[in-house]
């Protein structure tokens, strides 16, 4: 076992760079570990093998040959996860305005992996996220769930079809629909047409594929997956009225749903809870000073039994400051462990990738963050970020 001091070890790791060689072991010792699924473990060791968590706890024996990082006095949390970001896409690529319902659009086709924002995200401890199209249209397209690091997109992707973006309420005065009524009617009509499209396909299949197949439409193809519950709906929603409208549409068409922004969802918290719908909630870091009444929304929703997640809406606020959103929700009643869940395990569960990420648990990807103080304090720094078992950010070697 190599006992190395924290800085020396991390500097060495940074030099080695990239993922650890196969079978190489990494042990991070001495920190208080918040796993996101249980009580904090003080003086714990996290053992990483082949990019995954091999063990976590107080009495973990470190095999010979492991590279040991001493994190005594530090705080370790799972890599933070954001369920609502627009990172990696240029603002001009987010909203395809001429197409008011465009489920065939995929954010993946606009994704720029060279965007410097990705590196900044890692510096803030954010290791995976959902990035998606904007909210300028009634349906703006397919999001993607991926890691924030690595040069190979195929290895970064956690979930290719990361959710279909709906936007409730009128968004534009210069184009139709210009009212909440118009948006609801538009969505309902499209969903019904999708049902008819699916039925026509089925008739053709059931009829022994006689004659020419029905013409394919990529929009209906994409929306059919929503109706088949293979892809969930991510609904941009602010007013309580619009929350109720999307809940009614869910009741009618049976799709899986997550509310996004959810500004007034707390006003209808029991309606949201009884349908098992999750909510991505405000605030957006410290940029938008939501009223004290609305700031209690995350707490009220959690109390009602709704699974909640915080977000950045990057670039509305910077990706790296996701943890500020959770810290601010804590101020308004959300318990500390629930606030941490709202940027880790809850998000992974909402995304449907909790088998891979979201907590520090044996078998999961080794994505975690070493910090020099409480994760929610503004002045606390991220010292080290481990992603897929490799050190992907090390403050001690920054600028060197």
């Amino acid at each position, binding site marked *: 076992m190599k006992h190395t001091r924290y800085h020396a070890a991390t500097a060495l790791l940074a030099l080695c760079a990239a993922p650890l060689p196969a079978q190489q072991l990494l042990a991070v010792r001495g920190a208080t570990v918040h796993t996101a699924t249980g009580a904090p473990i003080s003086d714990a060791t996290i053992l990483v093998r082949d990019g995954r968590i091999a063990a976590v706890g107080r009495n973990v024996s470190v095999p010979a040959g492991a590279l040991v990082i001493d994190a005594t006095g530090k705080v370790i949390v799972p890599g933070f996860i954001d369920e609502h970001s627009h990172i990696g896409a240029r603002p001009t690529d987010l909203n395809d305005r001429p197409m008011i319902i465009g489920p065939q659009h995929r954010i993946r086709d606009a994704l720029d992996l060279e965007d410097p924002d990705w590196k900044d995200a890692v510096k803030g401890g954010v290791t995976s996220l959902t990035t998606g199209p904007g909210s300028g249209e009634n349906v703006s397209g397919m999001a993607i769930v991926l890691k924030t690091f690595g040069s190979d997109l195929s290895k970064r992707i956690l979930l290719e079809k990361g959710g279909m973006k709906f936007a409730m309420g009128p968004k534009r005065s210069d184009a139709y629909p210009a009212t909440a009524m118009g948006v609801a009617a538009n969505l309902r009509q499209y969903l019904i047409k999708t049902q008819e499209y699916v039925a026509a396909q089925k008739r053709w299949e059931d009829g022994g594929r006689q004659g020419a197949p029905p013409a394919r439409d990529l929009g209906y193809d994409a929306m059919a997956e929503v109706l088949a519950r293979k892809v969930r709906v991510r609904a941009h929603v602010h007013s309580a009225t619009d929350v109720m409208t999307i809940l009614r549409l869910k009741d009618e068409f049976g799709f899986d749903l997550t509310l996004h922004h959810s500004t007034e969802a707390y006003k209808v918290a029991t309606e949201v809870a009884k349908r098992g719908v999750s909510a991505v909630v405000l605030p957006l870091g410290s940029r938008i000073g*939501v009223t004290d009444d609305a700031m209690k929304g995350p707490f009220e929703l959690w109390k009602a039994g709704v699974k909640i997640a915080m977000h950045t809406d990057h670039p509305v606020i910077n990706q790296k400051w996701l943890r500020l959103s959770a810290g601010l929700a804590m101020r308004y009643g959300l318990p500390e462990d629930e606030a941490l869940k709202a940027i880790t395990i809850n998000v992974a569960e909402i995304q449907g990738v909790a088998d891979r990420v979201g907590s520090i648990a044996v078998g999961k990807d080794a994505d975690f963050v070493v910090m020099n103080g409480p994760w929610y304090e503004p002045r606390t720094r991220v010292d080290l970020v481990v992603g897929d078992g490799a050190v992907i950010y090390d403050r001690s070697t920054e600028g060197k």
Partner: protein
Amino acid sequence: MRETSRFLATTVVTAVAIAFVASPLAAQERAIAIRGGTVVPMDGPAITNATVVMRGGKITAVGANVTIPAGATVVDARGKYVLPGLIDAMTSLGIGSGDLNEPADPVSPQLRVFEAFNPFGDFGSGTSGPLRLHELLGGGVTTMYIAPADAALIGGQGAVVKTAGDNLAAMSLRDPAAIDISLGEPPRKAASAKQRDPATRMAEVAMIRQALVRAQEYQRNKAQNPSLPRDLGQEALGKLLRREIPARIQANAPVDIRNALQLAEEFGFDLVIDGAANAKSQLAQLAARKVPVILGQVSHPYVSNEEIPDKSDYPAVDETLPATLTNAGVTTAIATFSRAFGSLAPSGSSKWLLLDAGIAAGYGMTEQQVLQAVTIIPARILGVQDRVGSLTVGKDADVIVLDGPPLSMKSWVERVYVGGELVHEKR
């Protein structure tokens, strides 16, 4: 002798009677002592177990060994932190969304932002007075600079206001406080959309230069011939040229900061740079010429009022900027550049000024430096340091009491005094 004491007794009775009738004033006349807290006065180091006394709307004593006047209302602040009210040195708060930018002319120095300042609430609701901007007060902000948004080149005259007052006039602290100017993408884009100038940075600088040359001519001609017709815009720019007020120039890209410095040098006006995201590119110049800067939020330095700002004016987020500037000797305040997001966020990010500034404490600033960057330093930049910004005897009794360390996410502003009056308590 008997006559005198009867007279005295009468006046005392009268005074008491008046005190009961005119309560706001009387409340100020009665001393308030905030006792036993950690006092962070900003004009010196923090003092533990100290007392702040206010009377008549002013601070009358600060220290560990202060005699509390007889009859004073005593507030127990043991375990708490006592600070001067915070100052947000750049906002467009209290301005309706339709009033943020006057589109008539990109060069409009005659506009006064105070005439759009509406602390009464949305039309048909709100309050008649006393005026209390509770969302701001809850964040500890008692003074702010208000300005038009950044779509115009010369947007008008900014003002310094308090966030509580018995009426509109009582909230005004300095008006006009500066000529508000924007460089870079926001004015260029706004004008381009209307197919007019300034469509480029070249035009931005040329138009400001032309306006200032005209203003010089106007001042000269008016001095020689007082019967010349008045021009309100030229009068406002005259105040700038005579250095009665500074120019607040929003400049983020290196070229914009350079242009702001150049214009100030040419015309000899006092300059404050707003935003200054790329200030590291002109660090030596800013320090040598003693040009103060007002930075945006530490976590979100994009100071434009656009929801998604044009990032071409900005470098990557750099939380070390406040420390770098401060330690290089540049007078540096941290502000929020807030506007209201409708009734959802009437105080914009301003209510979280302190928490956001607290990030800088993890990036090279001391806690004292962070606190000064949201109190005494903005007071000096805004030219209101004789009234606010520190717990100094003789200054306005704008005092906040926090229930924990000022830069902690867990701490709350419990009490806010403006002019010695308790204007906000945490619910």
